[in-house]
């Protein structure tokens, strides 16, 4: 199936999802659905770097929160800017951070990159905590508009649609890459870097592309967050649960294809939404940790691997 055809199909699926959510009529569906969709974007973005090229990013929270804080800054300085423009800005900032990090650490062994991303999350949080303009450690309040600016309905429906479209974009991009020249280059890097170089693959440039693309999508996913939570502080924006979820979802779904992160995010995201309501949020996080460890030990190819023989 061609990329355009797949993209149209994904849009139809998105439209059906939105229509179904509206038919249920309960605003909680949009609040919960938004979080699941946000994880679809994050997991897919993570997998472009982690699954395709084999470089593990522990700093999802940093890329994500940088997108969110870009929105906080823009909301205070240019409040008239529409949300999609803020998302582009947040994506650009996070992509640049990814590029910078990658440039410094991607020449080294993959583990050093991973450790650096972990440390970077701590530092980005330190910077934001000390930056009073965005509220410092006290956090920032954002007023959520009441109504959607483009169709009749609550603003949360608008946020839901935005995240739905971003998920479509992320999945279509991830799928297109997988079947493209870029995808073969990424796979070669993941499998054997010296052999990839010897085959003419410009490994450093491709790794930088993957890092920037992955970081940029994460930043875009974080940009609407301030409007969703209406109160954002560093501890919640940089929560470790973002990093754990975004790693757990592709690994549970399967990292080799675009489908794995999608399955993982929908399953695990929905499970957590249910568990948070019915049990407790701490226990639902514990569940994610246990599932992650369980899957990497027992099912190295994830759920998708069960259906491939």
């Amino acid at each position: 199936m061609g990329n355009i055809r797949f993209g149209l199909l994904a849009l139809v699926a998105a439209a059906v999802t939105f229509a179904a959510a509206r038919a249920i009529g309960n605003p909680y569906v949009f609040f919960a659905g938004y979080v699941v969709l946000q994880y679809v974007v994050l997991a897919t973005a993570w997998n472009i770097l982690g699954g395709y090229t084999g470089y593990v990013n522990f700093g999802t929270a940093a890329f994500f929160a940088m997108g969110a804080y870009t929105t906080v800054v823009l909301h205070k300085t240019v409040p008239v800017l529409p949300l999609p423009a803020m998302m582009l800005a947040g994506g650009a900032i996070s992509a640049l951070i990814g590029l910078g990090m990658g440039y410094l650490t991607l020449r080294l062994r993959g583990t050093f990159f991973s450790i650096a991303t972990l440390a970077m999350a701590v530092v980005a949080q330190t910077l934001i905590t000390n930056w009073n303009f965005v509220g410092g450690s006290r956090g920032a309040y954002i007023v959520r508009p009441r109504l959607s600016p483009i169709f009749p309905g609550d603003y949360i429906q608008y946020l839901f649609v935005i995240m739905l479209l971003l998920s479509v974009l992320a999945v279509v991009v991830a799928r297109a890459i997988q079947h493209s020249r870029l995808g073969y280059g990424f796979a070669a890097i993941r499998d054997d870097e010296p052999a990839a170089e010897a085959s003419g693959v410009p490994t450093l440039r491709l790794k930088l592309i993957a890092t920037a693309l992955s970081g940029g999508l994460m930043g875009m996913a974080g940009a609407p967050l301030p409007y969703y939570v209406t109160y954002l502080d560093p501890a919640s924006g940089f929560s470790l649960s973002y990093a754990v979820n975004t790693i757990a979802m592709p690994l549970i779904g399967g990292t080799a294809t675009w489908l794995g992160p999608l399955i993982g995010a929908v399953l695990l995201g929905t499970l957590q939404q249910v568990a948070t309501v019915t049990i407790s949020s701490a226990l639902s996080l514990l569940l994610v940790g246990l599932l992650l460890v369980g899957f990497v030990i027992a099912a190295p190819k994830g759920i998708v691997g069960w259906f491939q023989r």
Partner: protein
Amino acid sequence: MTGALLTVAGLGKRFGGFIALSDVDLTVGAGERLGLIGPNGSGKSTMVNCLCGTLRNDTGNVTFGGHALDGLAAHRRTRLGIARSFQLPRPFPTLTLADNVRVPILYAADVKAGRVAVDPRRRCEELLNMVGLLDKADRKPADLTQIEMRKLELARAMASEPRLLIADEVMAGLSHREVDDILALLMTLNGQGIAIVMIEHIMRAVLAFSQRLVVLVAGRKIADGDPQEVVRQPDVVAAYLGS
């Protein structure tokens, strides 16, 4: 010397206090078959890595087809037309054989302006057919035998459409018949106009293959000439048999 494809002048490389290569000069003509021998640790692999850009040489210059290679990354050299096989085969384990070969087609052969405007799928099939692996095109490298792995390595090197192929011990550990098999394959490639540097311990194969033989000992070139004469040179005999 006209027609020199690869010119190496004064090549030197050291690791800490250990001198791996010292002032090595070498030329390879277009379409030539060159044998490179030397005892273990004589600097052959370091030489290959310096030529291919995996290592940076400390001194000297490498010129290939009129381009100065110094400081060029490995993938740029591949695109210029230097291909290598690895001593221990390094296939891409999660890709099928066809996709293994497809990577250099997409990243090296396609990039070269004016070169073959190829249909990647057909070229994949041609290459796998040439090494006799076409029927396994959809399998993964883990399913291959030792000799099939070497053949895949050669097919992948050839997929970048090189003008020079460096075959780094492609026959080590193979049986008598398998060595002949690979030898025939290399002769075929050479017949297509590709210069080949063969690094090998199996003297029978080197002597049958090479038009010229170069000997490295302790990082220095001690002989360069007609194979039959080189192997009778006293210092070469001494290096191999121990003095």
